[in-house]
């Protein structure tokens, strides 16, 4: 076979030559062809299998790491206890109340401070440095103080939970108010908008994405704050149950309590995400357009 195609005379167009269409397949990762839930379940099963091997082969003592079987059995026990409204449900509601009120308190203080810092020169110049200074402190170290001031009851846990989660809200609010586009501010100035009008009609809506980013971080850390408060200051919540189980080396119980506790964090995070979806609807639509365009 000779190769005359190497020299195509200019008079001959490509369509006149009997060349096959240059159709070729793009390389696609096979993982992207698998549905997402299959990948997730697959990874979980792989993880459980490794866990089972490590524990049943005696590589790690069962006192330190319980087998997946033991943990799942204990998950069932704790689940039944929660459903039958026994002492664990009481403890769960104690922690849930701490988380809820801690978050509400953090939200109220965080938004107030955030607006002060983000909107006023005084706040930015005088208040912000102190907020940064306190934010850099190890906040858990304040737990004994909260116990001393507010006692061993629910209030000291609410205070610690709020204290830990307030800073992302302050920063998110202030950063959101600062994020306003320079042109947008000039436009508002040129149409003679007052400071309040600029805040309500421009700065608050354009700052909502940053605000919600801070709020999401707060929604997760508020659970840690409440649990840390219970570890360090007693109480009747889930944190106390975890502490007791750990002191008895009941590691399956610790694991299953943590897993149920994560439901609380999920509810908090999910609620904030849903609120963001509702309030910052324009981000949602622009994302939709981006996905439409890529298809």
């Amino acid at each position, binding site marked *: 076979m000779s190769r005359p195609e190497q020299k195509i005379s200019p008079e001959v167009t490509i369509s006149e030559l009997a060349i096959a269409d240059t159709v070729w397949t793009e390389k696609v990762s096979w993982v992207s062809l698998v549905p997402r839930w299959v990948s997730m379940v697959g990874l979980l099963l792989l993880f459980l299998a490794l866990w089972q091997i490590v524990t049943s082969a005696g590589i790690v003592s069962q006192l330190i790491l319980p087998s997946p079987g033991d943990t799942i059995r204990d998950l069932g026990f704790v689940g039944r206890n929660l459903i039958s409204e026994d002492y664990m449900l009481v403890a769960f509601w104690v922690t849930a109340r701490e988380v809820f009120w801690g978050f509400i308190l953090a939200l109220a203080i965080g938004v107030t401070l955030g607006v002060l810092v983000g909107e006023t020169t005084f706040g930015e110049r005088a208040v912000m440095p102190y907020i940064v200074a306190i934010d850099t402190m190890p906040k858990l170290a304040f737990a004994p103080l909260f116990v001393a001031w507010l006692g061993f009851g629910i209030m000291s846990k609410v205070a610690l939970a709020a204290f830990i989660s307030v800073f992302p809200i302050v920063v998110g609010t202030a950063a959101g108010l600062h994020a306003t586009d320079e*042109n*947008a501010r000039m436009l508002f100035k040129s149409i003679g908008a007052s400071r309040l009008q600029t805040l309500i*009609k*421009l700065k608050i809506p354009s700052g909502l994405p940053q605000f919600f980013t801070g709020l999401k971080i707060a929604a997760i850390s508020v659970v840690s704050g409440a649990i840390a408060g219970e570890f360090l200051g007693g109480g009747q919540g889930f944190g106390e149950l975890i502490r007791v189980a750990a002191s008895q080396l009941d590691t399956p119980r610790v694991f299953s309590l943590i897993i149920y506790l994560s439901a609380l964090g999920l509810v908090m995070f999910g609620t904030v995400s849903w609120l963001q979806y509702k309030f910052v*609807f324009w981000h949602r639509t622009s994302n939709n357009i981006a996905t439409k365009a890529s298809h």
Partner: protein
Amino acid sequence: MTSRVRAETAGSSSRPVYELANVSKYFGERVALEGVELTLREGEFHSVIGSSGCGKSTLLKIMAGLTPPSKGRVMLSGTPVLGARPDIGMMFQQATLFPWRTTVQNILLPVEVREGRAAAEAAKRRALSLLELVGLKGFENTYPSQLSGGMAQRAAICRMLISEPNVLLLDEPFSALDEITRDFMNMELQRVCLERNASAFLVTHSISEAVILSDIVHVMSARPGRVVSSIVINLPRPRSLDMVTLPAFGEYISEIRNLLDTGAFL
């Protein structure tokens, strides 16, 4: 140093809208603007052209009352400019539409801010007819994320016109658009100005854009920012895009280019 207006032509009989006398702006030691003198008359279209940092945007901000001059006097329709004025309309390089408002709500924003929600509701019909004027009929209830760049700038034109300003201040309004769209938008801009007998003051980087649109082109140089020359463009109105092939057009272009080149090395 005053600007050298070469000819007081083109209807010096019509009433002046903007009068700037010896306007200067200092940022500390730096002289951003030095001794700008210019008069914008009713129905005239002026452009300012110059390299980046020559103070042309500062000049526009001073004229709009967004920032005070360090020296000199700015008069608009016979009264001194001492802050933002409702009788001007502004446009920027970005459309600056707000994504949480529909197109018509964006257009009604100046009315809502100045006169309240009820007045904005009352002005809705005017907004719809403006949208029709710029070819955006049917888009009033869509959000800006669904508009293309050119469509968004057309909506921004509507927002500028909703309060029926006498003067339009334009800060490179179409420079983010592709050239084909920009040419089209410039012709739209001319049509809007001629229809309403509005005066316009345009800041631009594009020499041909300045020449095709303007009655007078002010050429600025940097450090200190000042008007080195004001060139009267004697081309008939309405201008059309094919005028770029006229010899006179080319002469204006090269004249301005020469001025910019000498200015750049001063």
